[in-house]
Every structure is written in C-alpha cells, then in structure tokens.
C-alpha cells in the first residue's frame, strides 16, 4: 500500500485547518452546511469548465501585443463550479429564506415571472446599438414603463437611464443645477435633513454643492422653522426623503415645498420609500420637483446581493429639458432615440452611462406593475403600512418606539432605550435575531435615533410570518431584560460564521487572493 500521509497536495486540499474545523467533525462540515474553499484553492491549470472548438489557423493581428503572462485564474470543471456556488449560496440569507425586515431597503418578494420575461430573447438578447428600426418593442416597453411612473407620481416627465437610487439623485441634482445656471442663477447650497441617507449629501457634494443639514423635530420630521431660517437666495435645493428615513410621513411637506419654492429652491424628493404611498399619494401633489424611484425597491427588481438596480427620475416640466440623454421620443415612424444633446435635447445635462438604461430591470418592473395594476399597487402601499404598524403595535410594550405613539408608514423605528442597563447593544440584539432565523432590521440608521432599529416588513409578509417575528423579538427583549447579557455577546452561534473581526479586516486589508508563499509575504 502506498503511503498518503506525505502527499502534500492532499494535505493542502484536505486540511480542514485551512478553513477551520468545526468541533466534532474532521472535515469542519456540519452535515448540510459545508465548508467551501476559494475557487483559487481548487484550481488545476489543466482543468477547464468549457469546451471550445480549435480556432481557425490565422496569423494574429494583435499589433505585437499578444499576452505572454499567465492569467493566474484557477481551472475548474463544471461540476466543481456548480457545487462551489451552490455551497456559497447556502451561506446566504435571502427573501426566499425568510423575513428580511431591512428598513429603507424594501426587501419584498421577487416574482419569478419577471425573471422569465426579462430572459425573452426579444429583450435579453437585444443589442443596444442595433438599428432603432429593429428594437421598436424595447423602446415601446421603456415608453410604457415611463407612462406608469409618470401616472403614479403625477409628474410630466421621467429620466429613465439612472442605474440606481444614488445615480438618480445625481441625475436630479444635475438637472436642478442646470436649471439654475440656465437662469444665470448659480446657487451654492443644498439643504439635507440629518436623518437623510448617506447618498444624499454625497450626491450633493458630487454636484459641487455645499451641504447643510436641517435639524429634525422631536416628532422625527423636518423642522420647518429651522428650514425656513436656512433657506435663502443661494440655496439651490432641499433634499427631503418622504416618507422619511424614520418611517414617518412629512406631514408639513406641502409647507416645506412652498417654503423652498418661495426662495427659488427646488424640492428634490428621495423616493426610496415610495412603497409606502404608491397608488395612494402622488408626489406631484406634494410639491415635489424631482424624485428618483428605486425600481429595485418599490417595484421589486431583485437586489441580487447588492445590485443591479434602476433609479428613474421623475421631473417637472421646468426641469424636463435638462434630463440626461438618451431620450425615447415618438416620431413619425415609431419610436426614436435622441442619443446626444441636440435638437429637443439640446439643454440635456448629457449622458449618465453607456447605452439606454437598465432594460433588464425595466422589464421586471413593468411586469410587476402590470401584475398588480392600479388597484394592486394601492393595496401594496396599504399592506406595507399595515404590516409596519402591526409590528409597532405588538412590540411597543417591550421595545422602545423612537417617536411617540402615532402611526408609522411602511417602517417601524425603535431606539435602544429598552436595552438601557442590559449591557446588550443594538448590534448584539441584531445578532441574536439571526440565530432565531431572521435577518436583522437596519441598525444604527437613521443616525438621528440612538441605536436605531428600523424594520420594514413590506407587504409581501404574511401575518403568520410577522407573528413569529414578534414572538422572537419579544422573547429576546425579555431575555435581555432578564440579564442574559453574555448570551447576546456570544450571538450568533448557529451561523456559517460567528461574528467577524471587521477591525482586523480594515487594519490590514486583504482584498484579493494571492498565490501562496512569496506573494503572500507581500501582503
């Protein structure tokens, strides 16, 4: 019998040490929860997951720049690749797994019909630079989706190309700045509430504006008087999220809009929370001048672990001329594309990205909208708000609502007062929730609330699901108050990985795999 104990390659590949052994198993695996090495640790140069025909023999015309260096990519067979990514996926929590009450993110059900339709060859296999005569159906779809968005918001125009919310904010502020400059009225400042999402100030800065923050009232709304005090001839715009990031409707929004308009400033509304009011309230009726819509939130295009998204921006007639190119317009022979700032689009702020927008998201969003219809979308808002208020009501007595006892919109916001003196932090509480089989709420956002826990159940959770979530939260709250501090510090205990050392990660960043030995040292 040959002896294997010195087969270096085996010990390298076998060794659970590489990936950390789980007490009780030699492999480190835990039945169905299987440890998985990096692709790079499984590669063999001689292995390949595709079969390609021999290329025709030709003399290359690469201008003498043929690549000599090794690419350094691992070689795996298809079975290994399928297993690798299947195992990785099993280490993720998702909407399909359970309740994902991440406030401000609108993690709702993603219908599979939409996935199917986005893959129709007529959409998925369509090249953006084909002659316009061969893509009339695609342009009609964009135009139809635009019509739905305009009708739901009451706004006359929409810019379709922004790739996400932040991109949409950028688009919106660009049109605002262009409009001011067109009037020869350069303005410097943009007012943003303290509670705003980070992308708001970041975007304002990216457009060359100074950001000034608007304080909040004890009721968690924009302080109208403070706002008025800050408004002036050099304020270009206010950026207000409504419903706001505390999950509350800005009840003075009309006065806020008027105040801004009185000073010649535009009202940019962050529409990330549109899910709370879709079909119930049209932003146009609130005095909004421009607003982005996250199709990947309100209209259910999948988040995909971080993207892609789409952030169309609805605009007033006054701002419409500055909308980014390309524009889809009706022409004598059907739909046309205006791709450069010329003709009707001569005042456009220009192009925000290559090609014509996130078509894949457009198909999904339109399928979602048509499935719900005007009646269903209204029901979406009502059920989203109902679910959030139900959580608020059932948790009120054991957790601490951040703002009084009025109703919330689609999100219930709590602070960490109920944990005072328990030694349990919002983070600890969130990690304990993971072991219970739930994704934590958004934590420590918005910043205006101490130890914030922002929960957004969305309309696609059943009452049974909410009741189980409530049961888990209540039992954890009691546990915390019962002094089981250590239990919380040790959480999570049942996950593929326990708490991870983020400080170490940032102190000595390892951002990529490197071949063993020499290169390793370099890190």
């Amino acid at each position: 019998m040959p002896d294997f104990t010195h087969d270096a390659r085996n010990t390298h590949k076998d060794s659970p040490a590489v990936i950390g052994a789980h007490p009780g198993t030699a492999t480190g695996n835990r039945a169905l929860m299987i440890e998985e090495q990096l692709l790079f640790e499984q590669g063999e140069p001689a292995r390949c997951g595709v079969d390609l025909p021999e290329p025709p023999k030709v003399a290359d015309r690469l201008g003498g720049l043929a690549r000599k260096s090794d690419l350094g990519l691992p070689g795996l067979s298809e079975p290994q690749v399928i297993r690798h990514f299947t195992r990785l996926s099993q280490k993720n929590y998702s909407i399909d797994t359970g309740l994902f009450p991440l406030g401000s993110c609108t993690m709702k059900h993603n219908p599979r019909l939409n996935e199917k339709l986005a893959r129709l060859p007529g959409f998925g296999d369509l090249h953006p630079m084909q002659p316009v005569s061969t893509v009339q159906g695609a342009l009609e779809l964009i135009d139809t989706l635009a019509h739905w968005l305009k009708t739901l918001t009451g706004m006359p125009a929409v810019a379709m190309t922004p790739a996400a919310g932040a991109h949409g904010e950028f688009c919106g502020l660009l049109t605002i700045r262009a409009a001011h400059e067109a009037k020869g009225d350069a303005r410097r400042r943009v007012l943003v509430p303290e509670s705003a999402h980070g992308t708001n100030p970041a975007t304002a800065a990216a457009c060359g504006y100074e950001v000034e923050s608007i304080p909040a009232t004890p009721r968690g709304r924009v302080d109208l008087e403070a706002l008025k005090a800050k408004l002036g001839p050099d304020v270009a715009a206010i950026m207000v999220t409504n419903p706001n990031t505390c999950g509350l409707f800005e009840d003075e929004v009309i006065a806020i809009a008027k105040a801004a308009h009185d000073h010649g400033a535009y009202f940019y509304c962050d529409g990330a929370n549109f899910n709370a009011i879709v079909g119930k309230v049209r932003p146009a009726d609130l005095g909004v001048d421009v607003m982005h819509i996250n199709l990947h939130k309100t209209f259910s295009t999948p988040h995909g672990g971080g993207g892609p998204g789409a952030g169309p921006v609805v605009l007033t007639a006054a701002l419409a001329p500055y909308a980014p190119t390309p524009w889809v317009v009706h022409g004598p022979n059907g739909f046309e594309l205006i791709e450069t700032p010329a003709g009707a689009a001569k005042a456009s702020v220009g192009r925000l990205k290559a090609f014509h927008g996130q078509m894949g998201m457009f198909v999904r969003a339109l399928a979602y909208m048509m499935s719900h219809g005007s009646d269903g979308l209204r029901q979406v808002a009502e059920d989203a708000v109902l679910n959030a208020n139900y959580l608020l009501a059932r948790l009120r007595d054991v957790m601490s609502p951040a703002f009084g006892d009025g109703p919330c919109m689609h999100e219930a916001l709590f602070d960490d007062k109920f944990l005072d003196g328990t030694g349990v932090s919002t983070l600890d509480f969130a990690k304990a929730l993971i072991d219970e089989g739930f994704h934590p709420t958004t934590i420590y956002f918005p910043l205006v609330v101490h130890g914030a826990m922002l929960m957004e159940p969305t309309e696609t959770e059943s009452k049974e699901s909410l009741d189980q979530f409530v049961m888990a939260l209540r039992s954890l709250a009691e546990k915390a108050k019962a002094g089981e501090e250590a239990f919380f510090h040790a959480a999570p205990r049942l996950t593929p990985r326990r708490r991870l050392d983020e400080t170490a990660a940032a102190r000595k960043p390892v951002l990529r795999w490197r071949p063993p030995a020499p290169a390793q040292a370099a890190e």
Partner: protein
Amino acid sequence: MRYLPLTADDRRAMLGAIGAKTIDDLFVDVPVSARLAKPVDLPPHAGELEVERALSALAAKNLAAGQAQASFVGAGAYRHHVPAAVDHLIQRGEFLTAYTPYQPEISQGTLQMLFEFQSQVALVTGMEVANASMYDGATSAAEAVLMARRTVKREKVVLSAALHPHYRETIQTFARYSDGEIVVNAPDPTKDEDLAALIDEQTACLVVQNPDVFGRIRDLSPLARACQAKGALLVAVVTEVVSLGAIVPPGEMGADIVVAEGQSIGNGLNFGGPYVGLFATREKYIRQMPGRLAGQTVDADGKRGFVLTLSTREQHIRREKATSNICTNAGLCALAFTIHMALLGSEGLRQLARLNHAKAVQLADRLAGVSGAKLLNDSFFNEFTVRLPKPAAPVVEALAAKGILAGVPLSRLYPGEAKLANDLLVAVTETTTEEQMDLLVSGLKGAL
C-alpha cells in the same frame, strides 16, 4: 393578488391590534388634499398569463440578435455564449434575493464571491486590487477620473479621441460641475493620436481605451511613462474584457487605474443594461477608490471569513466626504462574471480570446473581397472599422431589413463628424459562423 398574503380577515384583525378603525387612520399624516380617493388611471391587476402575453408581444416586435440572420454589432457590448450553468446559479434565491451583505454571518456566500470577483478582476487586468463592481464601464471610467483628480489633486483631464463616445460623454457629465478642463482631440480612425503631447503638470490623468473604439490595439507603455514623467495617472479603459485573454493587460503596461465593462463575461446583451463595471488600481490608492470592497478576516472561532471593509470611504459613513455616492452596484452581474470566469479559467479565457480574434481575422480577410470597402485597422482583437464608399448608416438600415445586423455606423457614435460618415464598426465573437460572415460579405456587396 397572488403576491399579497394578507387576507381581509388578517387586515381586520391587524387594524384591531393596532387600535385603528380603517386603513386610512394610518395615513393621517398625509395632507388630505394629497390623498387619492381612488386608484390612478392605469389598468387593473392581471394574471401571469395575461402579463406574459402582453410583454411577449412587445418582445416579438424586436429582432433579437440571435434570431437575426447574423449580427456584427459591438461598440462596447458583445454577444458571447454564456454557459447555462451561469444563469442557473445566479437565479438561486439565496443570491438573487439577498441584499448587500451588511450582516456577514449570514452573507458569506455573497462576500466570498465578491472576494473571488475582485481577485479575478485584479488578475485579468494585471492590477493589484479591484472593487466589488460599479454600474457599468462608462460610470467606472467617470469615477476613475474623479479618483485621479482626488489622488493627484489636479483638475485637467485628457481623454483619447478613440475613447468610446458614451464613456467620454459620461465622464463629461460626471465632471460637469467641477473645475478643470477636459481635453479631447478630434477622432480619426486612420491616424495614431499623439496624446503624450497633451499631458502637462496640470494634468490629473489621461484616459485611453484599449482596444480603442475603432478596434485598434496600442501599447500603453509610452503613455504610462509620459504620465509618470508629469505626475499624472494613466486610466486604461477596456470595453471588451475577453480581449484580456489575448492582449497584454493594461496593468503590465503601467496603467494606474483600469476600468472595464464586464458584460462580455457571464452577462447577456439586455439592450444595454444591467452590465457590470470593473474597477482596478494599485494597492497604494485603495483609500481613494470608489465602491464597495470585500475583505478577508477571521470570525470569533478563528475561521476565515469575509466582510465588507474600508467603508470609511463610502457614503453611508463618510456622507458628503465619501469617495463616491454609489450604494447599490452590480452585484448579481458580478456574480455572473465570477461564475463564467470560474468556468473559463486561464485556459478557457485564452482559448476564447484566440477564437474571437481568429474569427475576426477571417472576416477581415473576407471583407477584403468587397470592392470599395477598406479595412482601416492594422491591429484589432474581435472588432474593426471598415470604410465604405458611401454613408454607412443607410447601408446598415438596408441590411437590417434583410435580417442582417451589419455593425455600428460610426455616424451614430460621432453624429458631428462628417469624416466618419462612411465608417462601419464590425464585431465578431465565438458565436459568429462562417455562413454569417458570408452573409455579411454578400449583403455588403449587394448594398454598395
């Protein structure tokens, strides 16, 4: 409604629990004047079959590239064959319906994948580090310019005239309200552009595409040296990542930042989006980088794990001082890229690139047989420019009517440039057959 779990009973019970009489009690904060009494004027809800019929009808009004007789359309998006395993895996709910991995203990799948993605991108571009993706290649390029300005604290930017016009325009839009001039030559597919001359002590960066928008391949090393000499950064743009399997990567030619459109690997055409922007640079510039980064660390049991890291660069922490406002990126497209690249490996990517190039050479040779048509490139990867004896746009229209997508007329990319009106940009991939090449040749002969 099939997507709404609440029943009328549930709603009643829940309102009761809340202590509200009607649903409108929960909307009290909405000004009465703004409350819609009834649904807006749009169609009512519809079943799957109805929605599928309506959208399929729209899809049927398009000529899908794969259903055309032949397609040679490129210019920044390429029709490659994506293995079935890719689409299967990205549709797993645990990937598809997860959010940004803010809770690492239950997001190791996404986080390890991003770490692998970053590693692959760094390797193929020949750079030290890469981020977890941007919206697309054009926005990556724009962010690269802003990063260059931050890094070297200068304003002037030089763009190659052979940079894809969509990228140029996107850069111009992103830089619209910041000071500093943006210098660009007039485009000319027949001449080599002298860029070194434009770089001076005020220059933050030079942006060059390789292969360029006309399909030409150039050695970036001299430009890298020129930039270094003036303390400027070289930003290399790649719109066809498959080329990196055949061409010296920008990193090896001295680029400081490499941005690319990753669509060719793992992602379909999708009429232009969603795609995936690649962003790679030198380790020393990490803290100026835009976008998310996945990093390696250990957990409480000492096991290796991954987290999002260096987020002090990002908007949710740094707010108006962030390196970028980006939040949602192109996660799932990055996953598709990672899976396809895992299937390819070094060997597969090289073979794929060889195959693409060889077919392009084949087509170039056959087009030589089309009298009046002139190949403008002396070098190319899988795309090149042909000058026709007459305006290219109508020719493309005429062939499209025959079901042949002949390519992209440069007049569409450079509407202003009369000199380019007769030029046609032609791309092939491994999916192009010899029959299709013959179709193009005969089609052009007929149209000229």
